[in-house]
């Protein structure tokens, strides 16, 4: 019948208005307003007893004046802006710089003068990643043969000036070590989740495969 479709539409929108189970398109970041119900649940108490004990808080949250920090669940593989880099693992081979499609990684090395355990022959003087131009494709991470460079898990790198967006070697060294598990199956096997806030040290993120010499020959020389 003509006109029925219009009514059906009205019912659908009304259903979305009144049913509380409908998911919101919006996530509130970094904090969200909270109702007395949510607040008491957060403190693990019954609304009524909680309301009687904290009348001021109850009233404030009823008026929508209380907000609590909110965080959206983030996948461990999330490719974030803050690169995680382990100077202990980096040899300065610059594979990452070479494979970056945009060429935004700048590496300058000099002989370190140290005794030479693996990867300590060169000191990294400059390691600039211009994340103002980075597209977070993660190819640099994929290219790194020593698992020294990882995608970070954070995304709060907003600055006022473009030049502050260049991550230099000091910042890389001092940044919290929360690598994303993107392209690092060994981290996934460990069950590591950067979202939990745990840091992970350089010796825990061992290589997922250590090919034998014959394997390597198969793979690279004969081709």
């Amino acid at each position, binding site marked *: 019948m*003509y006109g029925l*479709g219009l009514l059906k539409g009205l*019912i*659908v929108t009304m259903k979305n208005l009144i049913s509380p189970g409908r*998911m919101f398109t919006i996530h509130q970041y970094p904090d969200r307003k909270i109702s007395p119900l949510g607040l008491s649940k957060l403190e693990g108490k019954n609304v009524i007893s909680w309301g009687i004990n904290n009348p001021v808080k109850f009233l404030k949250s009823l008026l929508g004046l209380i907000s609590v920090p909110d965080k959206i669940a*983030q996948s461990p593989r999330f490719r974030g802006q803050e690169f995680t880099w382990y100077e202990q693992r980096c040899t300065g081979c610059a594979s990452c710089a070479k494979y970056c499609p945009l060429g935004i990684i700048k590496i300058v090395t000099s002989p370190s003068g140290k005794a030479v355990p693996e990867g300590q022959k060169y000191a990294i003087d400059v390691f600039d990643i211009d994340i103002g131009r980075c597209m977070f494709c*993660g*190819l640099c991470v994929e290219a790194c043969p020593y698992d020294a460079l990882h*995608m970070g898990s954070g995304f709060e790198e907003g600055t006022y000036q473009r030049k502050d967006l260049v991550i230099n070697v000091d910042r890389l060294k001092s940044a919290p070590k929360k690598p994303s598990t993107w392209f690092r199956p060994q981290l996934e096997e460990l069950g590591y989740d950067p979202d939990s806030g745990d840091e992970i040290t350089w010796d825990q993120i061992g290589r997922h495969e250590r090919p034998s010499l014959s394997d390597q020959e198969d793979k690279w020389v004969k081709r």
Partner: protein
Amino acid sequence: MSIRTEPVTINLGPQHPSTHGVFRLRVTFDGETVVDVDPVFGYMHRGTEKLAETRSYVQIVTLTDRLDWVSSMSNNLAYVRAVEALCEIEVPQRAQFLRVIAAELQRIASHLMATGFLVNDMGAFATPLMYCFRERERILDLFEILCGARITLSYMRPGGVFQDAPKAFWDNLDALMKEMPIYIDELESLVTTNEIVLARSKNVGVLTAEQSINGSLSGPMLRASSVDWDIRKSNPYEIYDKLNFEVPIGKNGDVFDRYLVRIKEMRESLKIIGQCVDMISEGPVRADVPYNIRPPAGDIYSSIEAPKGELGFYLVSDQSISPYRCKIRSPSFMNLSLLREMLVGWKMSDLIVILGSVDFVMGEVDR
């Protein structure tokens, strides 16, 4: 008595709420009626094809993300298939399944967005759009679990995918598969039977089968004009020949049929994903392909059925690490080729709706 009228020329775009990007349309109106249209492209030209000539084969994957940014997975798939065909790489079974799942999820996401914006162009105050985005958001969440990004995914590599899907992905996929049909039903009861939508879209912007074949249209645009052409069926790639699905066909080739074809395709995509989840088996997900590929000299054209139509890559290799030429056959651009046939003679409001039904993304049109 007839009143003397004078045609008015209006620049629709490049900044306009309904041109879906920086698309400029010089329209001549007689009153409300369109008498001439003159599309102007190129505001978003980023030289993707030229950039590809200076990138290695793996690096180009990141460029394809930015062609049609609402269906990056399909672009990835089209490109890596071209490279694989060029180098004759055998792709592991599990990788093929993963790719098909990802591409079909992307098809749903893309069609959701197309539908939402189409109804929004008809003037619904963003409600269907928001419902569509709510559902699309869930698919993007899945992509985040799968490959760490939501829009520019770069999930696929020549020779497979870069990494296997984590366990959380399968759980969330199951939940999505259960709820998605309900959401699509809800969307349909909001839009499909709505008389205003019918009045605005039925018999509007009609393209006959002959016209659309001659205009080399593809995808839902072509199928709405009752042409049974889907590369997944006619030239099965990946594992599509093992799957059981239907290709929805429209009748009249009007705006409403394009909408309906998209809705039905979403349901078919869900069916495909369900079968893939059942059939997928353990195994490697990436063939043993070196990071720097040097394909043998030669050229190849390979195309897939992207959400918007036939997306093809023509690669010419001169044995170096980057292609000598990379030509992209983008469905959005081809689908716009019949603008004049569709638009002339309709009212201004119809113009907006027809543009919405074409479902083009400027990143792909200008490349």
